[in-house]
């Protein structure tokens, strides 16, 4: 600790200048953001991590927890691909479980919106961060949420089950519970068994509330169809397990994923994309034979990333959170754009944390 706000701001401005020098365009974003957009994207959980307040005329507003959403909105309204943006400013995070952590700190970002060649875009953004952080004792970790989603898309299961798994990609425990249920590893709760056995589909209790009789009947029908489907093959679950366990250098991870893809051919395009990214990173001077890859990296904490993800973790300071994080968020742009996507990849550095490290930069 002991980093003053003035020092943190100066460091943030220095880093932003680096990104400006690379040709990124500066973006200023409002601190007060409409809460509804963020709540709809991330769900109720985000309230526990952000400051939400009530405005009599604007409704619920939120102190910006990050810049990604306003930057995407700005780009969708005015920008054309390719565009490179940078920004620096405070973000605000409630720290209920860790009151010792700062609730207000600076972020400096670099975001790239590019329609063509995602591998090149991923590699450019990673290299920009690796460059800016060269000279600090940091361990870089990469991952790819797109490989897990590709595996789920390739599973031999019904569409409702696939949709349920896709919906919980970012909730590892719930995802696991669903897999256990679908594969028959976890038994049905007694109440579900009773419901499936009972021929009647209408309640004896009076209908109250907004959820209609038809909606209830539709879900009962869906549960019956699910029960009739039969278990997901264990070998398919094992492929997901094997995939999630991949944790090695990029070069070995690539070999390993190619092996898994032999049994799950639907995975091939995603593994090829990973390979193209590795090549693009190597072409930018990144040593992929030393760069770490974890298939499950970013799954629980980086919910809007749906492809490449990365983090820079202080090697000697396990007490500190990652100094920089980033990734690809194509699906987020699609949801904010009402169906129109703007493929994007980017990341942020926390200058306040950087100042706590011994650097030679």
């Amino acid at each position: 600790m002991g980093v003053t706000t003035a020092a943190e701001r100066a460091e943030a401005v220095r880093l932003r200048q680096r990104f400006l020098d690379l040709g990124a365009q500066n973006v200023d974003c409002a601190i007060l953001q409409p809460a509804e957009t963020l709540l709809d994207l991330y769900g109720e959980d985000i309230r526990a991590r952000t400051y939400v307040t009530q405005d009599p005329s604007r409704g619920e507003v939120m102190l910006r927890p990050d810049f990604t959403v306003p930057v995407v909105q700005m780009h969708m309204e005015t920008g054309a691909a390719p565009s490179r943006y940078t920004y620096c400013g405070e973000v605000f995070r409630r720290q209920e479980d860790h009151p010792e952590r700062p609730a207000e700190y600076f972020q400096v970002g670099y975001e790239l919106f590019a329609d063509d060649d995602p591998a090149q875009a991923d590699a450019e953004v990673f290299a920009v961060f690796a460059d800016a952080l060269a000279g600090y004792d940091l361990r870089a970790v990469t991952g790819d949420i797109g490989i897990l989603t590709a595996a789920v898309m390739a599973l031999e299961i019904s569409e409702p089950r696939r949709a349920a798994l896709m919906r919980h990609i970012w909730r590892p425990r719930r995802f696991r519970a669903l897999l256990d249920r679908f594969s028959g590893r976890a038994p049905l709760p007694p109440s579900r068994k009773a419901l499936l056995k009972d021929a009647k589909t209408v309640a004896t209790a009076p209908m109250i509330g907004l959820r209609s009789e038809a909606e209830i009947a539709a879900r009962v029908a869906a549960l019956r169809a699910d029960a009739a489907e039969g278990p997901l093959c264990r070998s398919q679950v094992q492929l997901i397990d094997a995939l999630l366990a991949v944790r090695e250098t990029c070069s070995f991870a690539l070999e390993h994923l190619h092996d898994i893809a032999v049994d799950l051919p639907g995975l091939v395009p995603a593994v090829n994309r990973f390979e193209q990214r590795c090549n693009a990173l190597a072409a930018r001077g990144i040593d992929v034979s030393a760069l770490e890859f974890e298939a499950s990296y970013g799954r629980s904490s980086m919910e809007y990333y749906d492809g490449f993800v990365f983090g820079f973790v202080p090697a000697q300071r396990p007490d500190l959170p990652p100094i920089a994080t980033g990734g690809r968020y194509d699906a987020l742009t699609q949801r904010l754009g009402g169906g129109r996507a703007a493929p994007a990849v980017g990341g942020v550095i926390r200058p306040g944390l950087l100042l706590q490290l011994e650097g030679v930069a």
Partner: protein
Amino acid sequence: MTIKLGVPSKGRLMEKTFDWFGARGIGLARTGNEREYAGAVEGIEGVDLVLLSAGEIPRELAAGRIHLGVTGTDLIREKLVQWDQKVEPLAELGFGQADLIIAVPACWIDVNTLDDLDGAAAAFRAAHGFRMRIATKYHRLVREFLRQGGVADYQLVDSQGATEGTVKNLTAEAVADITSTGETLRANHLKVLEEEPVLRSQATLFRSRNAPLAGADREALRTLTKMLRV
């Protein structure tokens, strides 16, 4: 200085608390007229009775303005972040038992578990275009419980009273509230999910970890806890 003991200022909770202390040789009583919140302590020196709303007792304990306080576990957990660093539970008093539970309309024959609630929430959002509303005043506890349970596509709406009526009034689809017998829920055509409750609560005597203790106070607190056998 004196030891300050915070007790709920009205109703059954106050009376039962007075009985509990009385059974251990400490007489607590309200003084003055019916509307005046003043109290007296008999049977021990150096202890003051502070009558407060049960909902304010967690805050007063955390701030160290009272040394001891009687309130529900539910209120301590909901209102105090890192509650165990601010207060220490000394004794469960054996009354005021209530569970914080999640309840849905009894006509939802397809929803009995958290897993069902999540599935129904996904379908509800797709059909209605907004996240399923759960009415409660226990925002932090319920949100954490649902997060652990992997429930998505819901929203909490604030309800400070008559929560069981929100479903019928179409301001919520489900509720999370305190119940002891479940009678009010049944009367409002709601059923409790077949899960462990979000929290089991009862009236509990807490000690503040933040209240300053001078020499004589320390002695008074020791005498008091000895008499209370806590």
